[in-house]
């Protein structure tokens, strides 16, 4: 047994295991140092955790789009980050109009619902356009071609929106009922964070039920499994693909408004980093796997929020929050190296051409 193990491990494997072990050691060392240093009280950690949960739920919603499209088309929809951006940016103008007319204060819940609907509609339209114009003609092309098309479409959309709406940061109007906080002893939760977490949880539950329990959901799962067999079973594959994009678009649009509520700003470039993080989340959970995307999103959000302070502060690194994106990317690379099938395992049937 040892002989076979020795034969099968290459020098590169050894290097990778060493690097992984080194990172693990650093993480443990840093965490113990930070916790024993006592600089942060438990209410601080609670803040980090809640923030991480909120941000993670947003990532989870966006990751749904990535994972579903990958499941059904075997391609990364690079432009999904722009689908995410287009919704809240367009809905901003509705929100601003509501705010200036006072409607936002008089009927906050109704205006929020309308804002959500506008955002979801816009994102869906962009997703549909993408599918129709950029992806459908290239379904049979070699792997690299749709990926490059997606990259091109992503930048095209970013700069189109920049041209349409301008390059500035637009501040979302403040919704009064979402301000304020709830205290539990010395732990506090900001109201909008709670709203984000609950809304995202509801949406994810709804999406999950839709995919698992309805006929259309079953059809989508079937097309992800095997396109030819599905079409033989009488399923309209094109329509299912379109439906997948619609669902992904709606989820992204909703996530966009939640993001705007949380970070209070929209900008034409706002989709890029959350997009990559959401893709990380989808891969973390197992690409093609919808519960996995949700889990991956929350996990990533928590690591990003708690991680820099926990791991790096103890190592004496100054301003660790600057490196939070780096931690997310390192996590991505580590997952891709050591467990490419993700936490819950890849649900995509491996087909070799």
């Amino acid at each position, binding site marked *: 047994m040892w002989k076979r193990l020795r034969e099968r491990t290459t020098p590169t494997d050894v290097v990778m295991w060493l690097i992984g072990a080194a990172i693990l050691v650093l993480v443990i060392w840093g965490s113990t140092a930070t916790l024993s240093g006592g600089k942060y009280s438990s209410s601080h950690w609670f803040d980090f955790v809640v923030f991480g949960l909120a941000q993670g739920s947003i990532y989870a919603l966006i990751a749904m789009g990535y994972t579903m499209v990958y499941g059904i088309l075997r391609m990364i929809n690079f432009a999904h980050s722009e689908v995410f951006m287009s919704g809240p940016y367009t809905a901003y103008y509705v929100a601003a109009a509501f705010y200036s007319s006072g409607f936002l204060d008089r009927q906050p819940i109704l205006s929020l619902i309308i804002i959500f609907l506008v955002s979801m509609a816009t994102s869906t339209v962009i997703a549909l356009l993408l599918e129709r114009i950029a992806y459908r003609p290239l379904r049979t092309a070699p792997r690299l071609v749709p990926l490059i098309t997606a990259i091109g479409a992503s930048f095209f959309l970013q700069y189109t929106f920049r041209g349409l709406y301008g390059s500035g940061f637009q501040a979302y109007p403040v919704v009064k009922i979402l301000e304020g906080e709830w205290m539990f002893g010395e732990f506090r939760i900001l109201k909008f964070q709670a709203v984000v977490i609950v809304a995202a949880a509801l949406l994810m539950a709804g999406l999950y039920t839709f995919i698992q329990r309805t006929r259309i959901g079953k059809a989508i799962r079937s097309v992800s499994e095997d396109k030819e067999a599905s079409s033989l079973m009488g399923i309209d594959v094109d329509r299912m693909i379109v439906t997948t994009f619609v669902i992904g678009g709606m989820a992204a649009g909703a996530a966009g408004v939640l993001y705007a509520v949380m970070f209070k700003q929209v900008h034409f470039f706002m989709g890029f980093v959350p997009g990559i993080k959401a893709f*990380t989340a989808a891969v973390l959970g197992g690409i093609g796997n919808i519960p996995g995307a949700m889990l991956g999103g929350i996990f990533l959000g928590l690591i990003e929020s708690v991680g820099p302070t926990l791991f790096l502060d103890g190592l004496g690194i100054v301003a660790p929050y600057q490196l939070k994106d780096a931690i997310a990317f390192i996590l991505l690379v580590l997952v891709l190296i050591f467990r490419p099938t993700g936490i819950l395992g890849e649900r995509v049937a491996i087909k070799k051409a």
Partner: protein
Amino acid sequence: MKQAIKIGLIGGVVEVLLSLIGMIEAFSQRDIISHIISMGHTLLLLVVLFIGYLAAKGTPGRKPSWVLINGLTSGLMVGGGLALLVTMGGMMNLRKVFINASPLLYKLLTFDQGRNEGILLLLGGGVLSGLLAGLLSLAPSILRRVLIVSLGSVVGAGVLQDLLRPTVALWGSLAVVNEWLFSSNGLTSHGAIGLFALVTASSAFWAKKGNVIRSGLKSLPPARQRALKITALLLLIALLLGLPQLLGLFLSEVLTIIGLYVLLGLGLNIVVGFAGLLDLGYVAFFAIGAYTTGVLTSPELGFFNLSFWGALPFAIFMGVLSGVLLGVPVLKMRGDYLAIATLGFGEIIRILVLSDFLRPWLGGAQGIGKIAKAHIGSMELATPQQIYYLILAGCLLVGFISWRLRDSRLGRAWMAVREDEDVAQAMGINLSSTKLLAFATGAAFSALSGAIFASKLGSVYPHSFNVMISINILCLIIVGGMGSIPGVLVGAFALVGLPELLREFADYRLLVYGAALVAMMLLRPEGLWPEALRRRELHEGESTKTESVSGSESKST
């Protein structure tokens, strides 16, 4: 007819979009034909002509009356779209949402007439252009080609006037041509007509006699042919060497930037084009080369005090090292994951050089300044013209290495890996070392480019090393042709040179890149100057492709 309406509506949406993103406005600064038509209006006209042509060409049966009607209808739709925009703009303030829906835009769209007159002009203009396009599609193909070439030349001369005017002006004897052809903003009307006539005449001549000349050349004895080729090559080299003197300061600067991108493109061409490894974090190696040069030569940080040539080998070595370090973890990853992982690496490097954590060594957000320039003997290479020669040397060296590698055993191993990894491994190719060599070579070229960049600018800032540069380089080699060395040149001149020359482009650069990328992938995935092999590959299934909804993978990347 329905098809024509659909095409026309799409055209209308496109033109409205072009107006709302501000492109028409920005382009109107420049006149193509002085005081007659600006670049903005030319763009609108070209779009409607193209739409009309598409609609006319798609007419089943090609009956002349129907062709014209289709062209006309689609033109009407396009004009209608713009007219709708103008009407809505009059009724409500669109500017609150679409920041470019300014009074200037409406003035441009209504051709400086009142609103109602403008709408009529738009509709009429659309119809007329559609009709013209229809006529064009009915014309015999030789005539059509000649007309398109002439039109293209006039528009091209207007667009590239900033390049042509100073170049011609440098030769005193040709100054009179300059006067006649160009005015301060755009071609003169007689210049445009003259140019049109000239190009029409020469294209007509070439269309008639071109084949004769070409076969005449081929029938020359091989020795003469070789002599001709060598003379052409020598002329090219002389041109390359003399270019900075010919073109002046600004254009030499543009050439140096193009040259840097050519270096980068050649490196990424090896990774993506030869070996098929989609690397989106390529800018990381560029940064590493630049920062190594900075750290080693700058007195600001005070660690070392090497000269540029002393630091150069270290920069390249660091590039190779990081290429290997990047390559090891991603050896087992497939296409999409590889792309994202490398993107992650690129971002990690950028975040690290920007962070306060590494500021004592890398300068943090302020970067590193006072980087040494290159010296040859006692002469310092500081002006764009001089740096051009340094970059030219780099490009020639890297180009030569690329070319030899492509035809070598390693190059063929790379292409085998690109086609199908498993088969390549079965054929006895060591995947790990082949891939690592690809990464390392690409990284070395990139680090070289980074070192020259650092020396040229004299300083490095972390903000210059963002993911956009990786995407830029990727676009460049894809538009030029993946894996093709002349393609890199074409891509660099098109995607880097043009935006430098057309300052109005600046805001829309990435938009055009994105659109170009999508268009290229849809229409011509092998690029503008492809490898012959690639073109055969990508169009292989086309004649035998059946309408299949299943979309199974017919080939792996």
